[in-house]
């Protein structure tokens, strides 16, 4: 779904007199609730990243300060994916700190995790630079080939 379509939808709902609308497809879940002041947009991305939600046009009564809050927008983030099947480890050793945590800045070439398979330990390097926004897999969990492991905000 494109940003323009979301904006149009919000405009339409704002002017419709409906208090709350929920739309759910395989690709996304969109929930719009209109309070007396302004609509709030809450969007959760499922299998695809949600596009940037453009600032919707507020209803006639809204004040400029009451701009809608965008809960989560993952479109501008880049995924670091697993290059192999194995077990995901966030730390170099069981008793040490994680390679990276949410909020950390990573640079291209930096190790972000270890994936172990049959006693072979693979230090996985980030291809991108940016800030870690989310760690998508728990420590010591099995991962599949191409499974997203981290979300990185390239803007940082």
């Amino acid at each position: 779904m494109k940003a323009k379509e979301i904006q149009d939808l919000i405009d339409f709902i704002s002017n419709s007199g409906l208090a709350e609308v929920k739309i759910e497809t395989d690709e996304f879940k969109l929930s719009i609730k209109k309070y007396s002041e302004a609509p709030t947009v809450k969007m959760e991305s499922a299998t695809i990243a949600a596009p940037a939600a453009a600032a919707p046009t507020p209803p006639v009564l809204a004040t400029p300060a009451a701009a809608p809050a965008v809960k989560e927008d993952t479109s501008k983030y880049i995924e670091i994916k697993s290059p192999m099947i194995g077990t995901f480890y966030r730390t170099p050793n069981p008793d040490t700190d994680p390679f990276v945590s949410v909020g950390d800045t990573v640079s291209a070439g930096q190790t972000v995790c270890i994936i172990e398979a049959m006693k072979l330990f693979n230090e996985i390097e980030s291809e991108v630079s940016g800030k870690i926004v989310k760690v998508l897999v728990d420590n010591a969990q099995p991962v599949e080939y191409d499974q997203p492991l981290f979300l990185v905000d390239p803007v940082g």
Partner: protein
Amino acid sequence: MYKILANTLFLGKDIHFLTECHSTNDVALEKIRSKEITEGSIVITDSQIRGRGQRGNRWWSEPRKNLTFSLVLQPYFLDTSEQFELNIIISLAVSEVLSDYLHGIKIKWPNDLFHEEKGKLGGILIENLVNQRGIEFSIIGIGLNINQDMRELPKASSFFSLTGMEWDRWEILKLIISKIEKYYIKLKNGDKSELRKFYLERLYKLEQWSSYDDGEVFIGKIKGINKEGKLIIEKTEGSLNYYGHKEVKYLF
């Protein structure tokens, strides 16, 4: 210092000797990152203070008694899904050299160097640097108990404990290096099936009934490994079971 070790093409031509270090794999990694070393380089130490087995397991080594070193390879020709081939060539090469000196040497899956009766003689710890293009570098850490007296230990042994005499560590190192290079080149040439065959011939408990624990104790027989290196064990009722590392324990 130690001169060129072996009659090899590229392996061991650049040797970094450290009288003491925490872990040769860690030093090798730092030196790769600072571009001091590259494919073929070896980092070796006489005293490894914080030797590592896998993920935190300690590997204790008495100074100047054993062989502890790491070598650097660039197996860019391997897909990340094929990296078990590294376990195969390294454990095969080392176990063949050990067998020149000692009887009863086996490879305990996936890559332990093992004496049939006396237990572990050494270990291999392979760490790869991986990016989206594949394996960039492979650091092969090898630790072997040579002249350390380990007769008191129940599940480990050494050259000294098995033979009652001291051995020339550099001689053993030379042989290992040239054999690893030989098999590495063979792997690069795509000769995987023969290497797998040699590996299986040396696999501890292959085709023998023995007891194992995969959450439950059972009697089984090792049949081999699959492509990704999982261990295949046949249970008494005839089922074939595939195990990843640490998913099954040998009870012996």
